[in-house]
């Protein structure tokens, strides 16, 4: 086996939290009512010259992870090493010289350029900040080179233009020129083509490919667009709620997707071939609230292939009831909603790990149990019921016991270069607290 090149970046166990501030007082006092874990235990390496795609829906943490590579967000825990140097905890002063080597291109080219600064000035300012190409003449030449490098040629036509005078594609080229003028090693491109017209996207993607070959750049390509990721990336990491759920070489991920989330994403991409047909049986719902993510596998409530220990809980019972209520008659809904009461009843703390309790809002616990049993009988294929070990009424409340939860870990698939975080592929290890309770029994 050939020896692997020294990685450019090594990211280990990275956690990034954002504090939630709910009201004005909390904002002023700096107190927080909770946190959102934007990046939750990510491990990944980046080899020089490679294009890594971070793919996921909004709220998956892909942009936060990309920004962390440049030291633009402060991780709570974990390590980011760039050529062996630790970036986590580095002061702004020490980060700044490194940033010359680490550049970023954002989604909206219009917002990335100062409207009152000419394109030439925007680029030469970046050079000035990093003390590159001193001397007016030399700097102007360097700016011109960068502009022509990205196709804005002849540079004299563009150097004194304001962003408002350029088209969307030209603006994005100018933003890319500003980034490469500094001679970076890594370019983090966050949705660089998604704001552009279809006919321009191919041109910008082509430019990025060209720059990679000519300048030996390494890319982190952040996107929700699987089609462009497939074309552009060498390796893909699929993210969901702050975690990498599947990663591997692009060809393998697309030819043989393993994680149910990856499969769903690929099915959902609209295909310009009319014989393809519309994707049906897609995951239900949307990305849940990141401040209180589902336990176990975060994808389990939406997963069509979920198994008993994926992490079922009371909120999933509520989801299933709400789905039921979009099917039944209005009269039946009214009666059942009276019995069940409002949504907050499902958010109560579990009296014991893996045990949920639901008290009827009106009527008896036996009626409530009958309702749940009826739903189970009418929809036995619902994955939630695999995760319910038992339901019982003690006259006052219904007690629902769930199968032990296990958090899937990102582990390699034998015989491939792919890693997947899913119980379908790896035997789950029971979580510590439940293992302990089981022993105590």
């Amino acid at each position, binding site marked *: 086996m050939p020896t692997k090149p020294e990685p450019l970046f090594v990211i280990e166990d990275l956690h990034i939290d954002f504090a939630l501030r709910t009201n004005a007082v909390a904002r002023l006092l700096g107190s927080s009512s909770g946190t959102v874990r934007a990046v939750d235990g990510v491990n990944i390496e980046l080899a020089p010259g490679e294009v890594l795609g971070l793919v996921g*829906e909004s709220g998956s943490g892909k942009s936060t992870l990309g920004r962390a590579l440049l030291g633009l967000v402060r991780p709570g825990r974990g390590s980011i090493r760039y050529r062996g140097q630790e970036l986590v905890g580095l002061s702004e002063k020490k980060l700044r010289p490194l940033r010359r080597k680490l550049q970023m291109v954002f989604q909206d080219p219009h917002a990335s350029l100062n409207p009152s600064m000419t394109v030439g000035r925007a680029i030469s300012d970046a050079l000035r900040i990093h003390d590159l190409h001193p001397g007016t003449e030399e700097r102007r030449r360097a700016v011109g080179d960068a502009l022509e490098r990205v196709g804005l040629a002849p540079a004299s036509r563009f150097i004194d233009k304001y962003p408002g005078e350029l088209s969307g594609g030209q603006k994005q080229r100018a933003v890319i020129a500003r980034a490469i003028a500094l001679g970076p090693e890594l370019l983090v491109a966050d949705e660089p083509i998604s704001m552009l017209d279809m006919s321009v*996207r191919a041109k910008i993607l*082509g430019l990025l490919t060209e720059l990679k070959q000519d300048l030996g750049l390494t890319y982190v390509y952040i996107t929700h667009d699987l*089609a462009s990721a*497939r074309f552009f990336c060498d390796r893909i990491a699929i993210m969901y709620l702050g975690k990498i759920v599947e990663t591997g070489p692009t060809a393998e991920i697309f030819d043989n997707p393993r994680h149910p989330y990856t499969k*769903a994403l690929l099915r*959902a991409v609209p*295909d310009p071939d009319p014989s393809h047909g519309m994707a049906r049986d897609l995951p239900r719902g949307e990305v849940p609230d990141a401040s209180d993510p589902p336990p176990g596998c975060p994808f389990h409530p939406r997963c069509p292939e979920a198994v008993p220990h994926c992490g079922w809980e009371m909120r999933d019972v509520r989801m299933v009831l709400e789905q039921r209520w979009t099917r039944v008659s209005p009269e039946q809904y009214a009666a059942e*909603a009276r019995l069940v009461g409002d949504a907050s009843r499902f958010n109560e703390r579990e009296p014991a790990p893996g045990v949920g309790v639901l008290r009827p809002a009106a009527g008896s616990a036996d009626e409530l149990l009958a309702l749940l049993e009826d739903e189970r009988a009418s929809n036995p294929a619902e994955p939630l019921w695999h995760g319910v070990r038992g339901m019982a009424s003690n006259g006052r409340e219904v007690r629902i016991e769930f199968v032990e939860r296990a958090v899937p870990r990102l582990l390699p698939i034998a015989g491939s270069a792919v890693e997947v975080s899913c119980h379908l592929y790896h035997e789950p290890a029971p979580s510590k607290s439940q293992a302990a309770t089981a022993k105590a029994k």
Partner: protein
Amino acid sequence: MTAPVVDVHDVRVWYAGPNGPVQAVDGVTFALRPGEVLGLVGESGCGKSTLGRGLMGLVPRGAAIDGDVEFDGRHLLGLSKKEREKIRGPGMALIFQEPMTRLDPLMKISDHFTEVLHVHEPKLSKSEMRDRALDALRSLGIPPTRYDNYPHEFSGGMRQRIMIALALALRPKFIIADEPTTALDVLVEAQILNILADIRQTYAPAILLITHNLGIVAEACDRVAVMYAGRIVEQGPVRDVFAKPRHPYTQALLRSTISLKTQELNSIAGAPPDLVRPPTGCRFHPRCAHAMQVCVDKLPPLIVEGVQQAECWLLASGLSEAQRRPLQREEVSVADEA
């Protein structure tokens, strides 16, 4: 064949720009039958949104609209503002791109429904309104438990479902959906497209789906109309047009689309023209690889070939040698691209 519910004939919309009148829509003709979905595609600035709004009578102040829009047997453009407002809602509905900006943050979802129903169907009783609203929400998979929530308590996809439910509550015959999924994530986008397909089964409205995504057209539409610089340059059944596009612009647009099967990148040279001073003849000729002398001189005729129709001189017969002479194309640099 059933009669069309919407018949648009030679519609033009122009409005004032800083450099003179902008001819945003310039002679558009199409028809939609009940239950049919027509995809309207094109680059930004080709006039597709202006056309969509123009059909509803929603043109910006100072804009003018001309031509004929026949809806359900009535000629809309001749109607007074008041009469047109009556048709909006129960007759035709518009679904916008950004659901958050279209819902009032201070009004509960239930209030949105009561307001809409109160204006357009004042005879309904309160409980009938509630039933109608819950019915529409249910068909879009929104549980009745959320009826009294505020817009901010919903996710982006849910809000778009609510927008669609609001439109459906009035049972419109014609829906204009302007980029209804553009702001949404892939999976949610696919859910909304599924919903639109279901709506066709249950309510059978005619839908004009405005989008820039050819993938969505392929999946969700029966017919497609390709718009360029204010004109529909090609239209026909999606299968036929995508399998054998007649117009060079349609061909280029399909080639430049990045899909999961993309092996190499293709793009369209140049940029869409300035609609204050559009090019003479065929408006696509400066970007067209097959442009001929006649393309500069005269507007191409509409050539009908079976179910497909396109405006292009390449499809015309009886041109003289001089007219057929290929046009010397100037080198298009990035300087002129979009």
